[in-house]
């Protein structure tokens, strides 16, 4: 079996001067090429999970880390964030704070990361073109980043990460500030990336979206993992229903008193409602 992409072993983490740990007792193993959705209510520790995998916690935030976070075979304590950035990318919620703020054209912005990595100019050009194509912003190449809409800007931020050729992509609610069209565009790009073998860990609170896209879901509550498995498995557990909520299809099936396992996706839902109850 090949090396896992992300491994958390008994991880606990408290921010600097915080009285409690933001996450505790995290054990998680994500294989290369998986697409894992992470969900849970506010303060569940979803973002902290991303920051830990990236190494920003503890390298950027200080604080106390227990246990071991290993990404692509290297423990997070042993590698700086800027070194980690060669293989791992993190997309934040807010598209505006993610642009470097130092470049006047979209294509120059995409080139920022590869330049920091010392990639050769010809190679940078190729990667920038490819990344802009992939997220569908090639037509905006000569625009000023700040002239873009929120959705375009988030795609730019994603292209900027893709130009660095990450093996693992962490996404912290990447579409929470986007309109439906922008959201659909981002998810389409992600589906393509998943097909090409990139490992994706995505925090998302829209459960329907998660179930539609991710073969595996991690549900978190107050800093701990509550359930981890295939969507249907996770959302058919009582405790998840109570503390995280359910996708709309599962909720409908539940109120219609359909028997478990209840559907989590639209397609299954249609089937479930058509099947006569035996």
């Amino acid at each position, binding site marked *: 079996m090949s090396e896992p992409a992300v491994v958390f072993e008994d991880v606990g983490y408290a921010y600097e001067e915080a009285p409690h740990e933001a996450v505790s007792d995290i054990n998680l193993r994500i294989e290369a090429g998986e697409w894992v959705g992470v969900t849970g209510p506010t303060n569940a520790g979803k973002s902290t999970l991303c920051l830990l995998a*990236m190494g*920003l916690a503890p390298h*950027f935030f200080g604080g106390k880390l227990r246990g071991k976070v290993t990404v692509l075979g290297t423990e997070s304590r042993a590698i700086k*964030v*800027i*070194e980690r*950035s*060669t293989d791992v*990318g*993190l997309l*934040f919620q*807010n598209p*505006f*704070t*993610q*642009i*470097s*703020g*130092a*470049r*006047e054209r979209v294509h*120059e912005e995409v*080139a*920022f*990361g*590869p*330049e*920091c*990595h*010392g*990639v*050769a*100019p010809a190679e*940078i050009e190729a990667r920038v073109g490819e990344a802009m194509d992939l997220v569908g912003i090639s037509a905006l190449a000569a625009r*000023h980043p*700040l*002239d873009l809409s929120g959705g375009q800007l988030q795609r730019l*931020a994603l292209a*900027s*990460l893709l130009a*660095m050729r990450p093996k693992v992509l962490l996404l912290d609610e990447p579409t929470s500030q986007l309109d439906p069209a922008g959201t659909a565009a981002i998810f389409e790009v992600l589906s393509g990336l998943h097909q090409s073998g990139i490992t994706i860990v995505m925090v998302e609170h829209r459960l329907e979206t998660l179930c539609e896209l991710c073969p595996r879901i991690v549900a978190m509550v107050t800093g701990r993992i509550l359930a981890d498995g295939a969507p249907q498995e996770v959302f058919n557990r009582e405790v998840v229903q109570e503390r995280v909520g359910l996708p709309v299809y599962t909720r409908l099936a539940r109120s219609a008193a359909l028997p478990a396992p209840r559907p989590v996706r639209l397609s299954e839902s249609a089937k479930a409602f058509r099947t006569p109850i035996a």
Partner: protein
Amino acid sequence: MAGGLSLYQEGASLLHRAHPLTKGVFTLSVIALAFIVPSLYWILAIALILLILVIVAGVLRRLIAVALALLLPIAVLLLAVQGFANPANHTVLFAIGPVVYYTEGLYIAAIAALRITCLVVATFLFSFTTRPADITEALMQRGLSPAMGYVVQSALQIIPQTLDMAGRIQDAQRSRGLETEGSLPKRARAYLPLMLPLVLSSLVATQERAMALEVRGFGLPVKRVRRYEFADSAVQRVTRWALALAVPAAIVARLLGWK
């Protein structure tokens, strides 16, 4: 708003095409020389060279527009104060009642004003013909740290955004009844309510931006990639050295009694 701060004007003149470092060295040397040379004639000679270059660069009209607004009040203040009160004053030029105006002060003020004019014109000439991004790129190719390059490029983008936001906050606060006109104490009291929201909102983004930069490898100790090359030539290299050496040479000449 994009690049709203830069004075750069597209063009294809000799100055536009020159290496940014050549222009930079020229600007600094010419300014230094304007303050080192001993007499009015030398300063006028420098001013004449600058004027020719301004015409060559095709920026005369714009230069007059920006430089005049800056220089006129300074020249007036200098001429008024020095002609009236300078320790060297003794030849009366004219007198209006008790106010006596002297020739020496006028001459001294004129020289000072001309020197400042050279400084202003040389700097604007540089700004009109050089893209800010080219300045930082050229400096980084000569060893300026990428961090400092980032600071300058980023500041050039953030300043116009912040000024935009200042305008919006001013409108918003005024519509909530903040008095931004009237007596001086009233206007002064409006300062803090205008500044606070502005500063807080611009500071809040820094943390996320710093994280985002690290995620993109900003600060990795790699050999920096040249984003593009500037055309350079032997003539330009010689010019740079000659200009740079002219400054200490002029200082030595002054010390040896050049008048």
